[in-house]
């Protein structure tokens, strides 16, 4: 019998990756293609959905070739995608009605402000589990319908379709046969009744979105049809938002288990079980995953806007390092931050503050400070922002985090991992797979087709690859945390109302 494998498509913000995994959950081959970022105006960020689909078509033979396997050896395909990025396309021609508006785009700011004045706004937050913010897809859809001539009428007549990236990819993969989304992606639109798990008529009415253009909502793990393009004949077993996929890849299947993915931004998700925990302290409630035929599992989410992107800024804008990993080399040239703190509120602060008027600061500058101290302050900013989110989670959920499972590119930074263990005062654990987003999509797809028998089978694949134990003096920790908070306060109210 020939060996079988599972394939994941990770449609991310800067690139699309196809990865083949084996039964142990280990990476067999990887192919990656970046796509163009469009910045037509300040605060606007767009992608060409057609370019992204073409990249998937191009990556398909490459990743199979590198693994040395044929399509008949692919048991299933799973998708993990950048969340909240939204596109509208023509049902007949398959062409996008414009570029996809991505999650970082803040063009709906004014519209969201005026919608927030409505007496219904808080009800919509209750229904969707999300605060009214530019971050989510619903306001973005409304903006496209308002600003593209004739689009609303065509949407009402069912001539155009909309979706997040998994919907767009599945529609194309299945030769335009399936217009579907999964509950985790749908839970990021503000249009989903997060308890009933279907589109909320009240939310659709509030945002003015015709139901005819929306995809069908399905469980994350089950069936999304069979591909006829790119990977012809392969079953699409699962689709999940990227952060939910990482939670799944880390096998956080039990309430109280949490992971933090350290990338451009960082996302801490805590499994809260089959009951939705009403979010407080700037956290969000979101669907973690749903296996077909079983109740949905929920998560609390705390998002940090700027972590890895602060290192990129240090590299590209300040040019103090030439590659991102060199931040650790530079930071190790000194033994502490020298009294310097960097709060990267580049476009406001996310959890637990959600202050859009805040802007970044570097405080504590003296003539003593070297670039080594700045490098340390850059890494510490990620550690302290994690601490603030964990504190909010502990209060909100009534659970106390005892270990933090980490993944993402920044976990290669040993100094940062030690700092996180130090400031949280809990062990930080890296599993034997840093590509947990793709792995989660693969796990979910493999589970859907019986490649892996059950959740316990997946858990047995999870092993500790590295662990950092807290080693910071409690008095130092308390003092540094107080300093960090004072630094954060200095970012508030920087942008004044016009």
């Amino acid at each position, binding site marked *: 019998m020939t060996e079988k494998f599972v394939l994941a498509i990770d449609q991310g913000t800067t690139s699309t990756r196809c990865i083949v995994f084996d039964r142990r959950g280990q990476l067999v081959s990887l192919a990656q293609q970046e796509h163009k970022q469009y910045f037509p105006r300040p605060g606007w960020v767009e992608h060409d959905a057609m370019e992204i689909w073409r990249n998937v078509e191009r990556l398909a033979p490459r990743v199979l070739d590198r693994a040395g396997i044929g399509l008949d050896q692919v048991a299933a395909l799973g998708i993990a995608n950048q969340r909240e990025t939204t596109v509208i396309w023509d049902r007949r021609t398959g062409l996008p009605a414009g570029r996809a508006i991505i999650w970082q785009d803040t063009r709906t700011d004014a519209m969201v402000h005026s919608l927030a004045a409505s007496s219904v706004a808080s009800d919509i937050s209750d229904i969707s589990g999300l605060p009214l913010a530019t971050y989510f897809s619903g306001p973005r859809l409304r903006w496209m319908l308002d600003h593209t001539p004739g689009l609303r009428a065509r949407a009402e007549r069912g001539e155009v379709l909309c979706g997040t990236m998994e919907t767009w990819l599945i529609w194309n993969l299945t030769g335009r046969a399936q217009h579907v989304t999964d509950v985790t992606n749908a839970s990021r639109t503000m249009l989903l009744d997060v308890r009933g798990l279907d589109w909320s008529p009240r939310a659709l009415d509030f945002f003015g979105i015709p139901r005819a253009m929306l995809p069908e909502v399905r469980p994350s793990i089950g069936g999304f049809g069979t591909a006829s393009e790119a990977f012809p004949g392969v079953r699409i077993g699962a689709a999940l938002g990227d952060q939910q996929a990482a939670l799944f890849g880390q096998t956080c299947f039990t309430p109280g288990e949490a992971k933090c993915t350290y990338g451009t931004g960082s996302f801490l998700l805590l499994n809260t079980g089959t009951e939705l925990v009403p979010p407080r302290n700037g956290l969000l409630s979101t669907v973690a995953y749903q296996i077909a035929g079983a109740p949905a599992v929920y998560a609390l989410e705390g998002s940090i806007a700027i972590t890895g992107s602060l290192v990129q800024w240090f590299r590209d804008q300040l040019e103090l390092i030439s*590659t991102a990993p060199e931040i650790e080399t530079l930071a190790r040239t000194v033994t502490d931050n020298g009294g310097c703190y960097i709060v990267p509120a580049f476009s406001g602060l996310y959890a637990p503050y959600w202050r859009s008027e805040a802007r970044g600061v570097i405080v504590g500058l003296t003539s003593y400070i070297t670039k080594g101290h700045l490098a340390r302050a850059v890494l510490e900013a990620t550690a302290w922002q994690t601490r603030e989110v964990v504190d909010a989670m502990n209060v909100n959920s009534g659970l106390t985090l005892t270990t933090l499972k980490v993944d993402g590119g920044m976990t290669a930074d040993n100094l940062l991992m030690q700092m996180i263990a130090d400031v949280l005062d809990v062990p930080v654990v890296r599993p034997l797979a*840093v590509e947990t987003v793709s792995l989660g999509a693969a796990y979910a797809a493999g589970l859907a087709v019986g490649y892996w028998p059950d959740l316990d089978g997946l858990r047995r694949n999870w092993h500790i690859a590295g662990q950092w134990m807290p080693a910071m003096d409690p008095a130092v920790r308390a003092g540094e945390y107080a300093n960090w908070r004072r630094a954060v306060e200095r970012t508030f109210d920087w942008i004044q109302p016009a």
Partner: protein
Amino acid sequence: MPGTVQAIERAAAILRTLAGGPGRLGLSEIARTLDLAKGTTHGILRTLQLVGFVEQDRVSGRYQLGGALLHLGTSYLDINELRSRSINWADPLAARSGEAVRIGTVLEGQVLVVHHVFRPDDTFQTLDVGTLLPLHATALGKVLLAYRAGGPAPDLPPFTRLTLTDPRALAVALERVRESGWAAEVEEMTLGQAAVAAPIRGYGGLVVGAIGISGPVDRLCDSRYRPRSRLVGYVRDAARAISRGLGVTR
């Protein structure tokens, strides 16, 4: 006398021109100065850029000497960069072999451990990134020694009775490493422990580090104390995958 390589002479001339020039130089200026065709000059510049000896200004498109030239005497690949580029392949090696994985580079006559993946059995283990190991008594070290110009350190202290303390015996062992492309260590550092390692190569095939697995002799070796070929294969595959990612085309 063997012939000289024209492309290397030209590359050297380009570097001298850039070093002597008043700041950045454009393609046409360099080609004119050396009386070379623009296409030839461009090809050489692009290659020099790829290895980091030349940098091109993003705005003006003009060339200058690259940062890598300044670091020629020291390790040219940042150790944290090496870890970052290896991490995706070190994990599968640990999973497939069932053993702990370490990546090392040379630091002042010793092996510096730059990455460590636990043996995947979820027992309590401690990260030993930053630890220094002897070159002559470890598989990682023998790989690093084998591909290094100049002989090993004259002083070869014993750790067990199997440690290679005779410089001639070590030289023979290193020759075998170069022939086979991997190194082994069987109870030469710690009794009951064995290890296998292979070279990680960067641009031009330069060895920038070594990756290896280590564990009990009875798991790593057959009954004749030779490393199991299946495990050697995993180590070499991982080393090649990392090298490919670092730009080695072979």
